[in-house]
């Protein structure tokens, strides 16, 4: 029986895989909670550590713990949504499968009953014809008086047999019609049930997709870049060298010119990752290469390029083209998509791709994310990338 014959589609999807995914997200939730708690317990282990460095560290670790716990909540919500969807999908698939099988059974029996009805109708028609002939023969024979008495009796017997056949055929006809009526009603009910299961599965899927789409994970921003020696000792000559600021997100980073391609890329990624989550600030990043409270699109891209040893000063979107070391065309590892002027309703903007990962500050949001502060976004659509007339790359990358 083909699927279209019964009009029921059992929704696709592997509920057990979905259930497994729910368990995996739950494990991730647990792991993130444990790591967050570990950061907390580490802080407790520092005991009476006090001073500016301690305050700076604690402010940072507190943000990290908050981020870990927030991400754990996202994983928990995702897990719960997937678990619910898995259960609903399994129930709908089970009901859909049962409905489909029952509908197929009804269809098979309808075909059988239709054949039986057709045979009963043929038998009834033949019996009627036989009865008509027998009655006619009987009338003729009785018209011949005593001479036709034998033939009349024989014709009466044939007529009686034909009447019995007709009655039997009519009864079979009636039974088949009655059964067909029952089966068609039953088929309609199974079809309705199957369609309901399909609709419920789709509704559950859309609810789940809505929950999943609403989830977002904000990476931790470590703001205490400089957990350095206490200022009271910074003037001590031996300490001064040791008290150099620690490397950390948000700390100024200047990669020396002449780095290898690999080192340049690593430095750019490290810098970009270190400022993720900083807000979009118009003009941000254009005042210099030092730590910034936020970045605009070109200030951010300039700073990323500078981390790799490019650019002498921050550039806006119209000045990137033609900068020393910035060449036309896509790069092997790093590509800059620059739109200096508004095009087709899109304002000037610039984004950067490093190792296939896209970063930007500001810009338009799309299915790939974006539209906020400094972000790591998914791969934008080809049509969106096509709105950037200047595709550039740093020399050697």
């Amino acid at each position, binding site marked *: 029986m083909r699927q279209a014959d019964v009009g029921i589609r059992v*929704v*696709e999807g592997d509920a057990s895989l979905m259930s497994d995914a729910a368990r995996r997200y739950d494990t991730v939730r647990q*792991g993130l909670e444990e790591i967050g708690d570990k950061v907390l317990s580490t802080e407790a282990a520092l005991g009476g*550590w006090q001073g500016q460095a301690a305050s700076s560290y604690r402010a940072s670790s507190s943000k990290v713990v908050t*981020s870990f716990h927030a991400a754990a909540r996202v994983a928990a919500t995702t897990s719960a949504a997937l678990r619910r969807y898995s259960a609903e999908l399994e129930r709908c698939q089970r009901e859909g499968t049962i409905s489909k099988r029952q509908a197929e059974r009804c269809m098979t029996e309808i075909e059988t009953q239709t054949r039986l009805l057709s045979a009963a109708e043929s038998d009834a028609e033949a019996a009627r014809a036989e009865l008509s002939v027998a009655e006619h023969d009987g009338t003729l024979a009785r018209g011949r008086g005593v001479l036709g008495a034998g033939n009349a009796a024989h014709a009466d017997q044939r007529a009686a047999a034909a009447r019995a056949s007709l009655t039997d055929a009519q009864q079979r006809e009636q039974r088949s019609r009655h059964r067909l009526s029952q089966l068609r009603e039953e088929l309609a009910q199974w079809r309705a049930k199957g369609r309901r299961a399909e609709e419920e599965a789709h509704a559950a899927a859309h609810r789940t997709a809505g929950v999943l789409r609403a989830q977002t994970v904000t990476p931790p921003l470590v703001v205490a*870049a400089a957990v350095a020696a206490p200022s009271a000792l910074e003037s001590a000559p031996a300490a001064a060298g*040791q008290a150099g600021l*620690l490397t950390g*997100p948000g700390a100024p980073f200047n990669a020396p010119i002449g780095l290898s391609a690999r080192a340049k890329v690593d430095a750019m990624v490290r810098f970009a990752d270190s400022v993720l989550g900083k807000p979009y600030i118009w003009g941000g990043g254009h005042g210099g290469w030092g730590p910034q409270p936020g970045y605009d699109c070109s200030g951010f891209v300039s700073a990323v390029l500078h981390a790799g040893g490019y650019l002498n000063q921050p550039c806006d979107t119209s000045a990137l083209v033609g900068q020393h070391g910035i060449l036309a065309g896509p790069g092997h590892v790093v590509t800059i998509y620059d739109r200096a002027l508004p095009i087709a309703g899109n304002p000037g903007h610039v984004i950067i791709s490093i190792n296939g990962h896209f970063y930007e500050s500001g810009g338009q949001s799309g299915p790939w994310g974006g539209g906020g502060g400094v972000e790591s976004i*998914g791969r934008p659509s080809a049509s969106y990338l096509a709105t950037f007339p200047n595709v550039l790359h740093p020399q050697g990358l």
Partner: protein
Amino acid sequence: MSEFLVTPEDVVAASGRLTAIGGEVDELLRHLGGCASAAAGTPTEGAFDDLLGHFSSMLPHFGLAGEHLGVALTGAGRSYSSCDDHVVGACEAGQDGA
């Protein structure tokens, strides 16, 4: 000017625990990677893949954050130790001078 009370060894020991976070997060990431095809064929496929991709791209930042905290503590511990040594050295030099 800071007032401080610190045991440099505790700070350095704590940093070791934090720098391990990167590996733990990587392990979670690998674990999450196992559910890649769970939504295949369902209307949730796009949303599921998007969230999984989002999670996968964000989790490394959590590992980095832990490592950064660890690195910060390591540096702080060294700085405190160095300052301590310098003060001790200066005091001894002063005594010698006396």
